[in-house]
């Protein structure tokens, strides 16, 4: 097989191509073109190996871009990948392994990557400054919908799949002593030290391999080559029973109290029983952040051209994939890192035309080694221009100049090359600790943000902590593991198992932090010097933002889109800080960074949702008779997590027809409704009555066994929050029923007051909601039906509530009149409700649903919580003042009711409304209008709370809350319906007397 242009020849025994297997070529497609990679390649390395320098187009200006980095920090090479039936956009080509038959597409271009029509946008750059969308597309205003469509079409990167994939995602919970985020040298050492103390350790690595970028370095530990030593340590860790290692599982969020999220991408095909991704919800007592660092790009004119790459990324491409970035390279470096890359390129047969060292007088072992190996080096120089062919598709030269003085031909030098590799030093990748609200101070010597004070239980080590030499990295890792163990074993006397090693890796001099190059750049140069590659933000853009008054990093971020791309500013923040400090004149150490929010790297919506998708989106609470009625009706009303039947339409019936039919049956015969969802609370104890007297506005203390009363719950302010029935079952034993929607809240309300305000009362609250299934039997024939069931007559003998046996089953029967008809709530243990439902149906009871119940109670003029109440309504407003005790010394809401605003005249009061047009049903929420003839806004005096067509009255009816409502009974009010003013007569609530 002929080697692709940039794949260096196989050199056995060298350090190049360690991850690839040249004997396994893999064919894949890129933008319709068949390419060949090899086993082990990433899409990025395979594209480079095939000589494809352009990997994408930038977001705003559609500039051609090549691969910049080696991992998650990659801002340019975003692709859409289709494999095994899945299409996933916006993946970093540096993080996707090539598989046979894979189809890869570049993004944000049309019709092709090389000839993108939107590339003209780059020519319009002066017209597209930061915030241009706040300044342009304003005129003429009527064209804005057209502009908006264009802008939306131009926005975005990859396209989402047209059909939702049938993938499965899961969540997994794990508790460990120590979570180590990052599987590089520091993380491995931290895990090792913690595990040696017997702690349970989870070591989580973002990529598929441990070791981080250690393979980019030479040196030895304990006499072993660096990588061999790491392999041995990893093998030892994997064999420990208290260590669990995850790969392809980055920690994406750190939350308080040691709670973290990791997202694991599972290998292999997914399926109905195999998840595609897994969200780990980890609770760790100690957390070690060992997430490494990102190499900083250098900021100079046209630093975004294809062929310009980070120096360490280029070196790792050589070592891992045997891919050279070009044939003629210039390395620009502000530290020793660039020399390593230059030496590797040299060894690989690439011409290193020049090493441009920004430092004036560097003096370090790497510099000495470089010069000894014959590298040509220029000190105190900087790149000032880049030459390119194809209108920017590829570079062919770089101009460098002395940093101190750049004018004059003698001081500038153009060097012909096809690749520029840049290293601006390292920026700790410690953004995870920012999730905890921790601010990282700016380290001027490093030229980057670096962790300072940390919350208890969190440790940051290695390059993430600003340590870049292997000896320091390993030492910090071990120390963190030991520190975690000390904290967790505080008070226990066993000595720590100290770990150390003999580490021999060349120590670098620190890189010099630099901002924009050249140091005295012109405005035209600033306009082409990119700080944020993904969102096309240049030094010139930052200058414009500062000039327009945006000086704080958060404001600049939002105004310019700096750091808002999928790379989340990983290669941006440090350089931006230096540039902004110079532009604003604000001391960089007083300029905090933007808030680092999770997730650390983009994650799918699917994994966030996990099992809560499709059928599993929300749990459903099922009535005990659900399997009996499921086939009878699909019309449901949601109430909390219950799905209650709205009605039971017969063949050919719509919902309204069914409701009217059911309501007529209840009024003329007997109907049955499943009300098992109502809250049911048993209150027992010698102070049960006293407790209820304090909880309810209604008098309870005088109730005898067998008595039941309609009752109201008020909040502290005196407003109605729930209603129900209180029944005395026996001395010191009461039942309180509540609405379905408020059952959980009322239970919490009862317990809160019992436990925190009146803990001395001898009363227990026992939730019986799930113990009893319950039916509402309602209608003129209800009693007769009940009496035909064994035990029914006894349960109906003279009391409002009775307990006994019904058809040999324990039962309770409660009398009510909520529908306006004689009604009984019959409760039996839930396991017996299916049998009772069937029995009642056999005896002729017509099933009816929630909408029918609503219609019946509307006709009866009875309130429904949540319709006639909205948190601002008192019992007196509702005409239920008789339910407020006049003699109790205290109850919840008593003092609230005394407030002047709740006793003033002209409060809204509940009344009935009969529209003049019998067919017009005004919707709930419709306003009562006092000045219908006036232009809007019109003065209003109330609103409609419930409405519907009354089968009993043969016309539309409604309830409303109207200011001074009761004094307006007999008068007419106005509301608007379908744009027309309509009249309605005000009546007492309740319309059964009006039935013909």
């Amino acid at each position, binding site marked *: 097989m002929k080697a692709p242009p940039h794949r260096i020849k196989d050199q056995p025994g060298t350090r190049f191509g360690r991850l690839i297997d040249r004997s396994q070529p893999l064919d894949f497609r890129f933008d319709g073109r068949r390419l060949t990679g090899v086993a082990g390649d990433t899409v990025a390395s395979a594209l480079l190996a095939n000589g494809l320098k352009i990997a994408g187009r930038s977001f705003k200006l559609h500039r051609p871009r090549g691969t910049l980095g080696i991992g998650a920090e990659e801002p340019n090479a975003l692709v859409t990948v289709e494999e095994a039936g899945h299409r996933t956009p916006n993946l970093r080509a540096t993080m996707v392994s090539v598989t046979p038959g894979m189809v890869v597409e570049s993004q944000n271009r049309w019709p092709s990557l090389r000839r993108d029509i939107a590339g003209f946008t780059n020519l319009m750059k002066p017209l597209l400054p930061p915030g241009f969308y706040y300044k342009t597309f304003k005129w003429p205003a009527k064209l804005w919908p057209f502009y908006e469509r264009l802008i939306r079409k131009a926005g975005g990167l990859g396209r989402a799949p047209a059909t939702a994939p049938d993938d499965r995602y*899961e*969540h997994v*919970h*794990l*508790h460990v002593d120590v979570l180590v985020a990052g*599987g590089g040298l520091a993380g491995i050492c931290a895990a090792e030290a913690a595990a040696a103390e017997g702690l*349970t350790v989870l070591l989580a690595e973002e990529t*598929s*391999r*441990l*070791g981080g970028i250690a*393979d980019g370095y030479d040196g030895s530990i304990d006499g072993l080559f660096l*990588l061999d030593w*790491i*392999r041995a340590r*990893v093998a030892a860790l*994997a*064999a420990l029973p*208290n260590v*669990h*290692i995850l790969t392809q599982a980055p920690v994406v969020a750190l939350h308080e109290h040691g709670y973290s999220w990791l997202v694991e991408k*599972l290998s292999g095909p997914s399926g109905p*029983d*195999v*998840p595609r991704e897994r969200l780990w*919800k980890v*609770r760790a007592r100690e957390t070690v952040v060992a997430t490494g660092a990102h190499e900083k790009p250098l900021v100079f004119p046209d630093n975004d051209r294809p062929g310009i790459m980070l120096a360490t990324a280029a070196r790792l491409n050589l070592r891992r994939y045997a891919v050279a970035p070009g044939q003629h390279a210039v390395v620009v470096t502000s530290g020793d890192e660039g020399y390593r890359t230059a030496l590797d390129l040299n060894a690989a047969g690439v011409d290193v035309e020049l090493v441009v060292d920004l430092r004036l007088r560097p003096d370090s072992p790497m510099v000495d080694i470089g010069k000894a190996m014959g590298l040509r080096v220029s000190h105190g120089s900087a790149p000032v221009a880049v030459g390119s062919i194809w209108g920017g598709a590829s570079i062919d030269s770089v101009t460098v100049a002395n940093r101190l003085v750049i004018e004059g031909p003698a001081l500038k030098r153009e060097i012909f090359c096809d690749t520029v590799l840049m290293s601006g030093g390292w920026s700790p990748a410690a953004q995870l600790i920012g999730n905890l609200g921790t601010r990282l101070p700016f380290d001027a010597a490093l030229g980057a943000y670096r962790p300072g004070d940390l919350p208890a239980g969190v440790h940051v080590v290695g390059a993430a902590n600003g340590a870049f030499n292997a000896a320091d990295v390993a030492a910090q890792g071990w120390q963190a593991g030991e520190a975690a163990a000390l904290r967790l074993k505080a008070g226990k006397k066993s000595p720590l198992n100290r770990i150390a090693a003999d580490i021999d890796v060349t120590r670098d001099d620190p890189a010099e932090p630099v901002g924009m190059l050249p140091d005295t750049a012109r405005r035209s140069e600033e306009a082409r010097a990119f700080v944020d590659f993904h969102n096309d933000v240049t030094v010139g853009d930052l200058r414009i933002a500062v000039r327009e008054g945006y000086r704080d990093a958060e404001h600049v971020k939002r105004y310019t889109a700096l750091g808002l791309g999928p790379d989340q500013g990983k290669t941006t923040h440090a350089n931006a800080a230096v540039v902004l400090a110079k532009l604003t004149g604000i001391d960089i150490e007083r300029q905090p960074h933007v808030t680092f929010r999770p997730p650390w790297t983009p994650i799918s919506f699917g994994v966030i949702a996990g*099992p*809560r998708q499709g059928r*599993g989106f929300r*749990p*459903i*609470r*099922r*009535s*005990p008779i659900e399997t009996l009625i499921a086939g009878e009706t699909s019309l449901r009303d949601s109430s909390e997590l*219950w799905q209650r039947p709205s009605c039971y339409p017969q063949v050919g019936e719509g919902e309204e027809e069914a409701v009217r039919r059911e309501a007529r049956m209840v009024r003329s015969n007997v109907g049955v409704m499943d009300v098992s969802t109502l809250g049911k609370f*048993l209150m*027992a104890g010698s102070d049960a009555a006293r407790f209820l007297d304090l909880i309810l506005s209604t008098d309870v203390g005088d109730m005898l066994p067998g008595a039941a009363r309609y009752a109201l719950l008020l909040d502290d302010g005196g407003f109605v929050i729930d209603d129900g029935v209180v029944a005395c079952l026996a001395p010191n034993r009461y039942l309180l029923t509540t609405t379905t929607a408020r059952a959980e809240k009322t239970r919490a309300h009862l317990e809160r007051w019992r436990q925190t305000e009146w803990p001395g009362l*001898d009363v*227990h609250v*026992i939730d*019986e*909601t*799930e*113990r009893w*299934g319950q039916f509402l039997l309602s209608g003129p024939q209800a009693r007769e039906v009940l009496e035909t069931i064994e035990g029914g007559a006894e349960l109906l003998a003279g009391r409002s509530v009775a307990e006994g046996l*019904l*058809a*040999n*089953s*324990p039962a309770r029967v409660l009398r009510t009149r909520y529908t306006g008809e004689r009604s009984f709530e019959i409760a039996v*243990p*839930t*396991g*017996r*409700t299916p*049998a*009772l439902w069937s*029995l009642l149906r056999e005896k002729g009871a017509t099933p009816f649903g929630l909408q029918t119940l609503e219609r019946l109670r509307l006709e009866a003029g009875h309130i429904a919580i949540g319709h006639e109440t909205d948190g601002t309504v008192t019992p007196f407003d509702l005409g239920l003042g008789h339910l407020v005790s006049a003699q109790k010394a205290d109850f919840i809401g008593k003092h609230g009711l005394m407030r002047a605003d709740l006793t003033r005249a002209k409060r809204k009061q509940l009344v009935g409304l009969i529209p003049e047009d019998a067919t017009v049903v005004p919707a709930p929420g419709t306003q009562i209008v006092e000045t219908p003839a006036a232009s809007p806004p019109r003065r209003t005096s109330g609103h409609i709370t419930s409405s519907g067509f009354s089968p009993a009255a043969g016309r539309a009816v409604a309830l409303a809350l109207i200011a001074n409502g009761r004094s307006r009974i007999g008068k007419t009010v106005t509301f608007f319906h379908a744009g027309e003013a309509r009249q309605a007569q005000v009546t007492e609530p309740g319309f059964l007397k009006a039935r013909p």
Partner: protein
Amino acid sequence: MLQWTETLDGPRSLVTGQTIALVTIEDPGFIEIRGQRSDRSLSKAIRALTGSPPPSEPWSSTGNDHLRLIWRGPDRWWLLLPRIEATKVAADFTMTCGKKAVIAELTGAVAALRLVGASAPEVLARLCPLDLTAVAPLQARATTLNDIPVTLLREAAGVVSWLVLVPRSFAFDVAQDLAWAVKTTAPLDLFGKREPPPV
């Protein structure tokens, strides 16, 4: 007589794997006891029924193969027993426990499933935020399964078996979620023997 319909109808064994079985069991008899442990009448009545005083250690349980009494709060215990006996036991208990205690039969309020096998912790890890390693044999915990409130009881030592008590109205969803977790074929293999990952 109104027949009892089990909450989770259908086959007793919902799903099985090589190292796991999820089974439904009959709706248990369920009695809630409220009172003070220092109440002698109550303590005596409980000892007469279970053979032991009421458990005082949070989340501990006492009992035998036939019934189990679980601590649910400083003044609260759950008694699980065969459903057929629950009503009589509750009635007898009310007579003997003294005036201060409150006995409420709640049979039907919870449904029960059992997760048995070495993979049970792995199945639960997919649904439950609890640190299962902190639950000793014959201890219980109130927690959630896929955000649904449940009570888990770790059953006898020597066998990996967890009893899942779920409010009846949520039982169908919990059974489906557990079955789904059991059927997942991508093992977690937590802290198990594995090949070291590549470097």
